[in-house]
């Protein structure tokens, strides 16, 4: 599942349209849109750090994302120098505290990369103080992105996602005069970038899914055999845990443990008549392995 968080509805429209998302009417706290088949869940958080953190926490507590899931914070932002472009953030600075966060940059992409400063108010180039903060940290001036949510999304998201699962994609809309950007203009800007954003989401979601999947999950039949085996050995809780460990090792080593267990049944050594015999059989089983 890809969890997309946008501050504004106009930033969400391309995803709603493209992925045929439908509104979840049961969620009355935030505007939530989803398509289970497309594995997309989008939330419009509202503007600002507190709204963003509240939405991320609420949604993630409700749906409990796993290692195969992805968080994407996407939306428009200001840039100190550039007038346009899509940026993937490799550094997120919270203006109020000076705290800095670093999403993992594991995968190749075609975007620019940059530092984003998250402030409580829209960045105003005429009253700029945030750049001083970044200058103080880096002594360099390469130009910064400015928004009002990224740092909050990261801080709330890190309770549920690993740093490589969180992506911050920002589209430059202005140079510090956010008031001049209308919702229609924002929606239009998102539309012009939609192909590359959607392509990125699809690719990264597939990679995250692929890289998080376990190679050696036991099948239903194997789990059933294990349960029967333990029951027929009259395993105590401790013995069962120990046996689980052995079975896991045997499976990972590519050894035919199901064959070994079946052989015990064929030789009529199982089921055991009591705990004592079960314990003895368990020790014999372990000895056979190493």
């Amino acid at each position: 599942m890809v969890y997309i968080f946008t501050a504004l509805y106009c930033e969400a429209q391309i995803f709603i349209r493209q992925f045929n998302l439908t509104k979840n009417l049961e969620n009355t706290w935030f505007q939530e849109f989803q398509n289970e088949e497309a594995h997309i869940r989008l939330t419009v958080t509202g503007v600002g750090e507190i709204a963003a953190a509240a939405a991320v926490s609420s949604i993630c507590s409700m749906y409990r994302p796993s290692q195969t899931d992805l968080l994407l914070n996407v939306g428009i932002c200001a840039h100190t120098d550039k007038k346009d472009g899509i940026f993937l953030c490799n550094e997120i600075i919270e203006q109020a505290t000076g705290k800095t966060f670093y999403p993992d940059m594991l995968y190749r992409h075609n975007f620019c990369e940059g530092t984003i400063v998250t402030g409580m108010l829209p960045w105003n180039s005429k009253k700029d103080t945030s750049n001083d903060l970044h200058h103080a940290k880096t002594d360099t001036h390469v130009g910064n992105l400015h928004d009002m949510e990224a740092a909050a999304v990261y801080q709330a998201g890190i309770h549920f996602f690993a740093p490589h699962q969180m992506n911050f994609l920002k589209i430059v809309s202005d140079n510090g005069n956010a008031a001049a950007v209308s919702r229609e203009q924002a929606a239009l800007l998102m539309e012009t970038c939609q192909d590359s954003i959607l392509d990125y989401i699809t690719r990264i979601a597939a990679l995250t899914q692929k890289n998080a999947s376990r190679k050696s999950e036991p099948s239903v039949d194997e789990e059933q055999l294990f349960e029967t085996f333990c029951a027929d050995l009259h395993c105590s809780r401790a013995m069962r845990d120990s046996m689980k460990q052995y079975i896991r090792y045997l499976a990972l080593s590519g050894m035919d443990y199901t064959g070994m267990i079946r052989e015990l049944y064929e030789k009529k050594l199982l089921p055991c008549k009591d705990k004592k015999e079960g314990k003895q059989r368990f020790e014999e089983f372990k000895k056979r392995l190493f």
Partner: protein
Amino acid sequence: MKNLKKDYFNPFFSHIYVEKSVRNHARTQKILAKFPSARIIEIGHYKDVFCRSRQNLRLQHHSQKLILAARQGTLLYEGAPVCQRFGNEHFYYTSCAMNCVFDCEYCYLKGMYPSANIVVFVNLEDIFAEAERILEHHSLYLCVSYDTDLLALEPLIGYVQEWCDFASRHDHLTIEIRTKCASKTFVQHATPLPNVIYAYTISPQAVIEAFEHHTASLADRLSCAAGLMHAGCPVRLCFDPMIYMPGWKQHYQEMMDQVLCTIDVDKMLDISIGTFRISQDYLKNMRKQEPDSAVIWFPFQKDDGYCHYPDSLMEEMECFLTGQFSEKIGREKIFRWNV
């Protein structure tokens, strides 16, 4: 080194995080010059990146980042109880780099560190100064490549050469450089010093292929060890950790045959033998990170906070190799960690 990388990952050291305090350090400049295409991100402290919560080490190993920082606090540590001391009274180790370009599934670094990214401390001069301070009181046996593989990083940071230069000026210092790297270039240019020991971790090829990802083959490691011995360098072979896998005896026998074919055992400094053992806490972290790794999901025996193979298996494995070597070299040259 990482040429088999799947192409959807960013390249090795695509991003280099540099502590602001060392941005203008000469070693920082020298290292950065080797990565002209890397994105440089300045950071306050290396832990801001290295110690983030919930990092996935398995994925990070596909696209490791470099962090350049200054080492603060303790610079030299006394060796841990599970480390082989080789009869040295003043046994220390130092971490001038943390983490490794290699990806051994059983490596304790995966349980010790919260990240797979590599930290290089550029203030080597402070570590040298601390070593000199200790040397004023007594001799020092120092392992410089414990929490990393310095030789594998040599083309990028040149620390082995710096340590060799330092050792050449201090007679009472002995350094050990532990490695799984087979750099023929380094071997060709190595200057033999009596107090610089090259310690090669030797494993059967089957173990290398199964668990020691990206490391040099057994043949290449042995060839480099032989080359250094031929040049007059003290060389130690470390059969430690010995790793259990089905058919282990045959694999270790084949390895022994290859060792004896390649290495003049009379010229070896010594050997160490020890089966895999690890702190229980590290193992717990490793299992969380590597749910599919057979080598760390072995049903270990736990004693005093350490996990190891069952006593009988441990004894059998270590005796097997000890017995083989006893016929070839003096007992005094064989070090078993738990004897």
